[in-house]
């Protein structure tokens, strides 16, 4: 297990270094360089020079990269948003809890629905109700997230006038928690998209496992139907879902970005989107790096979780 851990963590570190190099290179691809991006098109030659010296942009590429790494790791400085006039870390500490709350809640509900649903479909496979549910999940994952969000707004806010069309507009996460009514539509959007894909994977994984010998053995021993499904099959069938969960972190974050912009929920996704509109490059680059780190951590946790559930991986 230790060797497995060391190897996986090592790989993750390499990936993070590659991603940081990529975002750093993007910084250099900016039209007119980073100085123009931050000081604006009308900046004078001397102020650009002063900015370049102050930030080390006049030095060789690898020196600069080192400077960038040093700034992030040693000084914990992710950059400064000139458009919002605040350090990126402050913006993150405000918006990250809100995004985590939205994604976490949606993911939790997704799993609670998708796993039993997938098992139900596997047990009832090729019967009318399975076909109907498969049809729903097909539509669910063929539907653009923003279109789904719009449909929900059109139905629940415009037509029925039951729910507000926008998410809670508070600066802190406690505001989102105390306004559950406004959270329903964003969470519902992410949940529908999530259930559509997860239940399908769960279904095929459960079907595969139901055909295995150990299920027959358990049945022959006289284990009840529920016992077979939930004590014997669930643990094995859920393995691919654990990996999938880790691998779907980028998709979750993208879905989050779109949902936040549809419902105007002030989280990291909306911050990223508004920053693309105002070309706030320091925020964009810092967030890309942060999001990539989260993705890598997600993959790592999924792999380790896989090792904990499946003893075979731990031994080898």
């Amino acid at each position, binding site marked *: 297990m230790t060797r497995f851990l060391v190897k996986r963590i090592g*790989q993750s570190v*390499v990936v993070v270094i590659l991603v940081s190099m*990529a975002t750093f290179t993007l910084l250099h691809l900016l039209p007119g360089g980073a100085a123009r991006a931050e000081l604006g098109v009308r900046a004078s030659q001397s102020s650009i020079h002063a900015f370049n010296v102050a930030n080390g942009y006049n030095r060789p590429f690898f020196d600069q990269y080192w400077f960038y790494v040093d700034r992030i790791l040693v000084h914990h400085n992710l950059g400064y948003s000139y458009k919002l006039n605040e350090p990126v870390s402050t913006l993150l500490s405000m918006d990250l809890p809100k995004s985590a709350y939205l994604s976490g809640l949606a993911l939790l509900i997704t799993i609670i629905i998708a796993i039993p649903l997938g098992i139900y479909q596997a047990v009832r496979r090729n019967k009318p109700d399975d076909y109907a549910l498969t049809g729903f999940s*097909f539509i669910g994952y063929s539907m*653009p997230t923003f279109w789904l969000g719009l449909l929900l707004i059109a139905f629940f806010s415009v037509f029925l006038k039951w729910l507000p069309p926008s998410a809670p507009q508070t600066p802190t996460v406690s505001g989102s928690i105390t306004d559950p009514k406004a959270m329903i539509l964003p969470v519902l959007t992410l949940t529908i998209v999530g259930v559509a894909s997860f239940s399908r994977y769960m279904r095929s994984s459960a079907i595969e496992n139901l055909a295995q010998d150990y299920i027959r053995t358990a049945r022959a021993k006289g284990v009840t139907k529920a016992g077979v499904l939930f004590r014997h099959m669930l643990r094995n069938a859920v393995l691919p879902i654990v990996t999938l969960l880790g691998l779907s972190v*980028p998709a979750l974050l993208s879905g989050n970005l779109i949902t936040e912009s549809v419902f105007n929920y002030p989280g990291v996704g909306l911050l990223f989107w508004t920053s*693309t509109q105002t070309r706030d490059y320091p925020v964009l680059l810092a967030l890309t790096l942060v999001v990539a780190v989260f993705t890598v951590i997600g993959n790592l946790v999924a792999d380790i979780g896989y090792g904990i559930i499946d003893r075979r991986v731990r031994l080898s």
Partner: protein
Amino acid sequence: MTDQIEPDIALQEPEVVSQMVRAKRKRGANIFEVFMDNKLAIVGAVLIVLIVLFCFVGPVFYHSNQISSNLSIANTSPGHGHPLGTDNVGYDELGRLMSGGQSSIEIGFAAALLAGVFGVLWGAVSGYFGGVVDTIMMRIVDALLSIPVLFVLLLMAAIVHVNQLNLTLAVAFFAWLVPARLIRGETLTLRTREYIQAVKGMGGGAGRSIFLHIVPNAIGTIVVNITFQVADAILALAALGYLGFGIPPPAANWGSMLSQGVTYLYAGEWWLIYPVGILIVLTVISLNFIGDALRDAFDVRLQGR
């Protein structure tokens, strides 16, 4: 299909050979039969043909001004010479759907094809050579896979000028990773087969093995994956357009049309939102149906969806 062990055809008696050839031909016919047995796939294929005809042939029969805006007729409701009304700057919505569809379909297919070809080559080379080459090539794929695509696409769109070529390349840049992984896995099993060993023994190079033997044998995986990639590319394009990074007007795209229509949701101007949304969903769902059926027809087990 590729998991079956193929007996060496040259070592067989003549009548056995003709039997094997017939079996092979039958297998080709089988792929078609299995595909046609799947009713959803036929529905999907018919829908895709109709959508492509609508977008590319439609403008020949239905003329509308898609070059200049006309604010005096903005937001007209359906009827009055505009079957689906007009949008917020006076473009005819039905004609807009056609021209928006053209760019979505063109970019979607081009990006998927480009990504497919590059991914197949990358995966086949990586799997064929193995060892250090394989490790390095696959770690690059892993690294790129852990980059959140939408974020980087938006970042790139904020940096460079958006046009059709840029969008195609940007979408393809992230789409080649999955085919590369799948083909690498396939190549790892294929390269140990006798016929690849025979090519090596007769002095055939890597290029010959990869292009004449590995790629044709992995064609099922490739075709199925490219179908799904087209669907994903069209979805990604719609998302980008919705978030404000489509090809700028007067060019149209489905995503931007939706984001403009949203403003008028409360005014009840349904024609700006529902037709285009339904068109996106139909296109993507049809491609998914076709991909699913092709997967069953080619019997490719590697691809889950």
